[in-house]
């Protein structure tokens, strides 16, 4: 250990010559530089090359319109609307980075689309609306930060989000404290609205929390009734992905299926990052089910269905609205697979078609995702209720309570069906449709409501 003072670099001199590469090169260059002209030649050559590269890059310049992710330029399209009073903010809390961002970006874009349309249509006279998106990184603590950030802004009227139920749990109390209305496009856990004992003793936890999607205890039993009753499957295997959505859905499905006389022959779990499902499929195959109910989303469900078939387990796979996606079929969903989804079939609903067309016309970089339509509806609920609220006076923080009331009594058709809330803040839209894969696409098979 030799000591030489004052040199604070971390790199060791190349004593053994192990670092021959760059270090050597630089030293050679330096000696040449001291000698003179050789390098200048190189420099000129390099300069020419760089200049040409830069020119090439400059050719691609698009100078007036640029890559903001879309929807920010709405300020230019405000012909004739009175937006003089103020700009109000609708917050979006959803994952914008990392693994779940695909869904989160769909939520953001759809909300922006709704707000843009509202600005164009002068939906809220006197006000301009804008969306402020906050990344929750799919973790509760960051979600709480995002919620606090939004809640300390007096101009925030409402929040759309979150994607994850666990994030919702940390966001709810923050927004509640400031009486900011929250409309979730994606939380399906019944306990978020009706408390832990949601079936027998429902108790509303947060009066500012609403959701436009169907809860697990609507969707699961509906699926069970169809699969056991109509399709006549009596021995069913349940596979879940261990996440809140999948687990909740599967457990509600199981309750009803057993009540209807089916036998749950196997219950297995896949890892949320798995792509090879052979273990689970083999385990299930041993129990000879005549159908599989999958609690989870299409990225796993599609390959699962395909791999099951490859391994000789050719039975229908059924899932919830997380599975109802064209990608499911692309990823291996096979003929006869089933999924439930909220509302009447999209083709029969003009509002849904209009939304999808508008989304496509905007040419967003990201796809709509499973929750885009719900997010669009959530935004429209808040906008509609706001329009109602500002009728009775200009917006101020003190009107947040009134806005919550107006959201509670809101009613209008949306892209996912009728938008209306019950006394717990859940969507009253309990209409569900079962879709079946046939001819390479989802086709509606049965529409109805559970218990009806």
């Amino acid at each position: 250990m030799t000591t030489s003072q004052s040199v604070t670099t971390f790199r060791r001199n190349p004593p053994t010559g192990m670092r021959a590469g760059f270090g050597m090169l630089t030293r050679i260059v330096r000696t040449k530089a001291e000698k003179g002209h050789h390098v200048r030649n190189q420099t000129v050559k390099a300069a020419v090359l760089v200049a040409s590269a830069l020119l090439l890059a400059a050719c691609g310049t698009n100078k007036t319109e640029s890559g903001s992710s879309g929807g920010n330029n709405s300020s230019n399209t405000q012909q004739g609307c009175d937006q003089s009073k103020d700009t109000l903010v609708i917050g979006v809390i959803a994952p914008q980075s990392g693994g779940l961002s695909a869904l989160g970006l769909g939520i953001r874009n759809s909300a922006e689309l709704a707000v843009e349309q509202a600005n164009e249509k002068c939906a809220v006279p006197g006000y301009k609306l804008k969306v402020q998106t906050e990344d929750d990184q799919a973790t509760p603590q960051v979600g709480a930060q995002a919620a606090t950030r939004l809640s300390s802004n007096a101009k925030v009227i409402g929040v759309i989000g979150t994607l994850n139920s666990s994030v919702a749990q940390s966001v709810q109390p923050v927004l509640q404290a400031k009486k900011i209305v929250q409309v979730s496009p994606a939380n399906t856990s019944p306990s978020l609205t009706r408390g832990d004992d949601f079936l027998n003793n429902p108790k509303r936890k947060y009066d500012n929390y609403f959701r436009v999607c169907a809860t697990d205890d609507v969707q699961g039993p509906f699926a069970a009734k169809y699969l056991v009753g109509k399709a006549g499957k009596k021995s069913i295997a349940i596979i879940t992905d261990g996440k809140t959505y999948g687990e909740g859905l599967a457990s509600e499905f199981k309750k009803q299926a057993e009540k209807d006389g089916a036998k749950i022959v196997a219950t297995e779990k896949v890892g949320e990052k798995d792509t090879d499902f052979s273990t689970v499929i083999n385990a299930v195959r041993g129990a000879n089910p005549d159908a599989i109910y999958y609690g989870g989303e299409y990225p796993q469900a599609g390959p699962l269905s395909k791999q099951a078939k490859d391994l000789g387990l050719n039975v229908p796979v059924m899932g919830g609205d997380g599975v109802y996606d064209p990608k499911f079929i692309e990823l291996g969903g096979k003929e006869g697979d089933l999924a439930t989804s909220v509302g009447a079939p999209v083709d029969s609903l003009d509002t849904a078609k209009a939304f999808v067309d508008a989304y496509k016309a905007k040419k967003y970089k990201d796809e709509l995702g499973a929750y885009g339509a719900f997010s669009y509806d959530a935004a429209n609920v808040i906008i509609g209720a706001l329009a109602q609220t500002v009728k009775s006076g200009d917006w101020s923080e003190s009107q947040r309570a009134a806005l919550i009331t107006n959201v509670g009594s809101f009613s209008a058709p949306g892209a996912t069906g009728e938008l209306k809330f019950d006394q717990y803040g859940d969507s009253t839209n309990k209409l569900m449709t079962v879709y079946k894969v046939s001819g390479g696409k989802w086709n509606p098979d049965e529409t109805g409501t559970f218990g009806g």
Partner: protein
Amino acid sequence: MATLLQQLISGLVLGGQIALIALGYTMVYGIIQLINFAHGEVFMVSVFGALATYNWFIPESWQQTWPLALLAMLVGAVVVAVVLAVLMERFAYRPLRNAPRLAPLITALGVSVMLKEIVRLSFPGATAAVHVPRAFWDEPITFKVPGGTVVIGSTGLLVIVVAIVGAVLLQVYISRSRMGRAMRATAQDPDTARLMGVDPNRTIVLTFVIGGALAGVAGVLYGVHLNNVDTDAGFLTGIFAFTAAVLGGVGSIKGAVIGGFIIGVIKTVGGQYLPGGTAYDLVWIFVLLILVLVFRPQGLFGEPERVRA
């Protein structure tokens, strides 16, 4: 019986993939004692490389005929993986070769986060699964056994065969060829190897190239066998592969392959028969890893570590 056999076969298929990646870990660790954390991500990127090749780089007529498509995907995946591995070695690891042990490990973590993000940003929607074409002769082979049937897909069989053949070829290359000898010499003592006329840098790059190429092959097989991929594919598979390399004894090629198969079988058979079931299959693999490291740190086929003077 049928179920057990079926789980065993699925385990071997899974193990074959893990083994191919484990070879990359074991070689790099063997030569420069670096856990190349990003190796799992190289594998993941190579699947996307194969996918990009199929989608954007070959004419439609090739897409229709699977041997051509498979070949193109293989080339694409291997090129991507090799280029990536070499760049990583050159710009991330080589400057740190004399730094404390933590530095390259943390760099590897950083590289792996970066690779995942680059893929996510360049394939929108890749965080959810993306479809990869099958590009192989597609015929499940079914056996009758007492108590039912056992199925092995043609692609599954391919995975096992390639893993074993690849390992054998690699073994032969390392023990017979000139470069193989150089690699062994560098692993033993880089300074002496240099004196003997071996260029350690070249040898190390070659190691990364071979590891990358194997990851590329594994990537194509993975895509063709499972027909889907997402950006998380590298993380768990990478950790499994590393576990396999440790289990077999780091530095041992035979060990990596056998370790891979063991891990695969534990995941499938263990997932069914061990307590906790499929929900805890990961846990069992890690428990095994910890037990091996505690009670036989040199792995199944490694030599016991001498106490340093």
